[in-house]
């Protein structure tokens, strides 16, 4: 199946690859060999399974959202509850996997970037559990809007570095983490948080996140003998979506939908829909769709959710878009907040703003769909971190009216 997807040499069609400074090449090659050696190693997999189940609380439920389904008035909506995973988001699947790998490689110092802070928290959790030193890079703008996660990371023993360059968000945090890695390449492991970056990260992170899709595949049978008709997930870098989609790629009965952050609308230039509005480019070690100007300078982006606020996207998504296997759509800030509030009221679940983008699109899809169709939405994280943002947004909306 991998060969069919064109993952030879870290390429997904023409996307992916390695675009990195020479100093990182030996480190990336070392990582690639270590990952290749351990990914099928029974002891490694047993360790991974132990932490995922006993520590992080897998499997997460697939929950029939009856009230939301009735509200939308069409297809059945099922929620894959990654919000219930330890740490509050799907990020922990990947951080435990990579932290275990780092430990096997003898690296004691872990660095990571974070946007919304969920990957930072996930990394800090894994490092505390596995006794690794942890340093997180975060844009100063994100540190303000996701303040509670900064405090969580610090409580968990991580050192948080404020990044003040560029747009002061996720893109710049990745730049700074890469610079740290170049400077400390001998003893440091860069634990990247999404299916982005140079090979082997997009493949490795996808593999660690595939537990989501694999569980959906077996749990759907509690509700239906068939595969789901749709799987809907939000896409920033795209790791929860890749993990949800990948086990269904060859299952043509299931339509896959990735929801990008439409911000204030695709015509506003204030969004981060790299696949829908971007063009081919090279950023953060990979060839993929990026938002850029005609000269190749990377654009500033906007989304109400810090976790989607990124001008690039995983290279495998770029490939899946080109071959038309996944349909990519967008959802605005406004519709995402609306879905956030709706899910709280109707289901008693507070979703992350990132995941709310997927919920919003699923509601639209359900309304148009048949009653006998099933839509699985990956609820990638919980929304406690977003309460301040949503409260301010609703306040402003009231003032406007």
């Amino acid at each position: 199946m991998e060969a069919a997807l064109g993952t030879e040499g870290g390429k997904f069609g023409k996307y992916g690859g390695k675009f990195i400074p020479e100093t990182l090449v030996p480190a990336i090659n070392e990582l690639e060999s270590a990952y290749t050696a351990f990914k099928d190693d029974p002891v490694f997999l047993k360790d991974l399974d132990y932490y995922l189940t006993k520590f992080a609380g897998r499997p997460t439920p697939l929950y029939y959202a009856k009230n939301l389904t009735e509200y939308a008035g069409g297809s059945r909506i099922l929620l894959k509850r990654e919000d219930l995973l330890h740490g509050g988001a799907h990020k922990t699947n990947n951080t435990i996997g990579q932290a275990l790998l780092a430990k096997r490689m003898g690296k004691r110092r872990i660095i990571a970037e974070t946007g919304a802070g969920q990957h930072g928290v996930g990394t800090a959790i894994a490092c505390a559990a596995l006794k690794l030193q942890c340093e997180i890079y975060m844009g100063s703008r994100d540190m303000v809007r996701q303040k509670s996660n900064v405090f969580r990371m610090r409580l968990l023993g991580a050192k948080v570095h404020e990044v003040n360059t560029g747009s002061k968000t996720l893109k710049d945090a990745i730049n700074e983490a890469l610079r740290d890695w170049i400077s400390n390449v001998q003893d440091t492991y860069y634990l990247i948080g999404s299916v982005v970056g140079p090979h082997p990260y997009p493949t490795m992170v996808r593999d660690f996140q595939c537990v989501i899709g694999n569980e959906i595949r077996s749990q759907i049978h509690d509700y239906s003998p068939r595969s789901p008709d749709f799987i809907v997930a939000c896409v920033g870098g795209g790791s929860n979506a890749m993990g949800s989609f990948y086990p269904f790629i060859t299952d043509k009965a299931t339509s896959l939908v990735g929801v990008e952050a439409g911000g204030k609308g695709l015509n506003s230039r204030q969004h981060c829909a790299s696949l829908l509005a971007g063009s081919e480019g090279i950023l953060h070690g990979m060839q993929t769709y990026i938002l850029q100007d005609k000269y190749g300078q990377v654009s500033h982006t906007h989304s109400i959710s810090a976790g989607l606020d990124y001008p690039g996207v995983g290279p495998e998504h770029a490939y899946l878009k080109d071959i038309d296997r996944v349909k990519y759509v967008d959802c605005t800030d406004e519709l995402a907040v609306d879905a956030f509030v709706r899910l709280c009221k109707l289901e008693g679940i507070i979703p992350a703003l990132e995941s709310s983008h997927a919920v919003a699109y699923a509601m639209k899809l359900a309304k148009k769909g048949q009653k006998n169709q099933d839509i699985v939405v990956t609820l990638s994280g919980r929304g406690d971190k977003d309460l301040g943002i949503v409260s301010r947004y609703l306040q402003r909306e009231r003032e406007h009216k």
Partner: protein
Amino acid sequence: MPTSELENNRICCKFRQLVLENRPALICYVVAGYPTLKYTEEIVSTIVESGADIVEIGIPFSDPIADGPTIQQASTVALKNGTTPQKCLELVGAVREKFPRLPLLIMTYSNIVFRSGLEEFLRTSRLKGVDGFILPDLELTESYSYVNAASKLNMATVFLASPNTDASRLKKIMEVCSGFLYVVSVYGTTGSRAEYEDYTFQSIRRIKEITEGKIPIAVGFGISRPDQVTSLVNSGADAVIIGSAIIDRIAARHPNDKYKLVNLRAFVEQLREACLQTPISSENL
């Protein structure tokens, strides 16, 4: 497969000449558009008139991952000034007109080159008088179309080698590298360093041994003083590259731009003097 020696390429001619003079090359780097495009032209003239042998012109990129704070900030300022790759090439054209024999390289990141269209960008650069390129994020395995396109135009493709680049990889790099090999002195990004650790000198000696004088080696990252030039050349460098330290002199808070250029001239002359005083190692011959 391209060879490291290009006929009638200004960079290669310069190194052949310097072997005869038995001294290392002084390579200076500037960010085009910093602090303004017009001023960059004056900076380049000052640098060349005070003794730089080769000039690298940096086209600013929004996300320069191999660069430290000095070049990052200069790039940000240049981009805010509206500097575009096309305007940078116009600057190259003006420098070329003024200094017909000066070896000139473009240093930038892959996305800038690929966005304009690889072959189109290389052809335009050639027309404006560029002799070679340095793309620090273009890794060997991704570089073949670029190397082929450049070698057809007789332009040098400079690659980087790091302290952790092993012998077998270095040999592969040498197959595609032309003009000179850019040896990164340290684990880290660009920017001034107070002192080098022993591993820097060991790494230069090791790379020198593996390359066997088949291609000149230019050491860069962190050089800011004449005594550093001397010790790097004594370890085997055929050239030194100064970047951030030049920008630091332009960035210095001083109301008078003329004074900054005088200061810059004195700085480059000191480095030039160190190059004149330090013979390159005999294995080069």
